[in-house]
């Protein structure tokens, strides 16, 4: 598997580290929210774990060190999109 880093071009998988689902969002902390525990449990532990399209975070650890959002098919490993997380406005 190779990942096309938007900064460095197509590079070997060995240079990248995987950080899981990129669509998760940390819940807003609000002391009045009775469901806060449930929301954080969902955020920390629950995953869609799809067989198919998956948006996921990778870091080009042994390259430019940028965080990337990769759209990959978990059956075929086909990558349809690789974007710099910063460009997507992601706080990684």
């Amino acid at each position, binding site marked *: 598997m190779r990942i096309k880093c938007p900064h460095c071009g197509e590079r070997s*998988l060995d240079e990248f580290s995987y950080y899981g689902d990129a669509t998760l969002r940390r819940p807003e902390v609000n002391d009045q929210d009775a469901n806060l525990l449930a929301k954080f449990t969902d955020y920390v532990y629950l995953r869609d774990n799809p067989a198919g399209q998956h948006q996921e975070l990778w870091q080009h650890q042994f390259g430019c060190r940028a965080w990337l959002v990769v759209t990959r098919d978990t059956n075929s490993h086909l990558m349809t999109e690789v974007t710099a997380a910063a460009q997507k406005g992601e706080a990684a």
Partner: protein
Amino acid sequence: MKYSWKTLLQQGLNGHKGWPAQWRSPEPQPQYDVIIIGAGGHGLGTAYYLARKYGVTRVAVLERGWLGGGNTGRNTTIIRSNYLFEESGKLYNHAVNLWDTLAQELNYNVMYSPRGVMMLTHTIHDKQVAQRHLHANRLGGIDSEWLTPDQVKEFCPPINLRPDLRYPVLGATLQRRGGTARHDAVAWGYARAADALGVDIIQNCEVTAILRGQGGAVTGVETSRGPIKAKKIGVVAAGHTSHVMAMAGVRMPLESFPLQALVSEPVKPIFPCVVMSNTIHAYISQSDKGELVIGAGTDQYGSYSQTGGLHINQHTLEAICELFPQFRRMKMMRNWGGIVDVTVDRSPIIGKTPVANLFVNCGWGTGGFKATPGSADVFAATIAKGELHPIAAPFSLDRFRTGRLIDEGAAAAVAH
């Protein structure tokens, strides 16, 4: 037909033409008391114990492919119970106790061979942690002992003890009751025994929806072979659990990864035990066919392709070739992967779900085979009684909310 030397003799005299099929291939009935989704070892075992021990005989096991075709037929068949925490120890030891007499109970040779599982240590820190682990096991009633390097060599003569290895062998823990079993025979044995008790095993039957009634409780499933009603449903779908549970609107704390194994060409008996090393990542044993059975790791990223990354195998083979240099010239015959469902604490999930009458047994990750009989028994008890079996109770889905995780991240050599 009871298998015995008498039937073997009779069949032999008949030219082996009279052996009956080991299980039926029935059409699904319109309704069952319990439907088990997934005909791997855990699912078939659950059906067997439901019928045999807990008096629930109107049971169907639905399987999308063929029985025992998933991780049951893809693992490296290692059995042991030397997990660190008391909860895990009880669960895996329950399984080891059942392994002891499983062949007799099922009247099926599952080839359980308690040949000993040795876990190597390579650094001082390794050694200290292993000994602490060993004593925790002994306090928990799990057999475990320490072997010095000389004793390691005596127990496993092929091992390389040279001190100039990058990671020399400084000793090992040994669980003598650990060993291996024939994985296919476990699925087939449970299938045959469950079928004889009236359980319907329905292969090539994919569940496409989980049906719910008023109040949300499950009422049955929609399948590729039509709708089937059920009072209770048990999901035992390993790497595909997330999708099956999504049919009932339940999100799971699981991620699926491919886990690989490979076997060598068959050779004469050379390897007497199971050797694992967590530090340099190696699993090796020899099957009764003579193949060296080698376990590799999981891919770093989620995937449903049953072929993992090749570099994962290379990493394992580097360790094997260092520990057993004489295997360097052996040919590897086959390499494959299975999709394992991994929880964040590397412990399984057994029990109830937020949906009434829907039960789940999953999250066995990289180490489910060893637990097959124990997992099946406590899951069957949980389904039959509608309350958690005491051994299963700590492994409920609820632990992710309460924070009572059972962190067995260091229990396996598989790098998580």
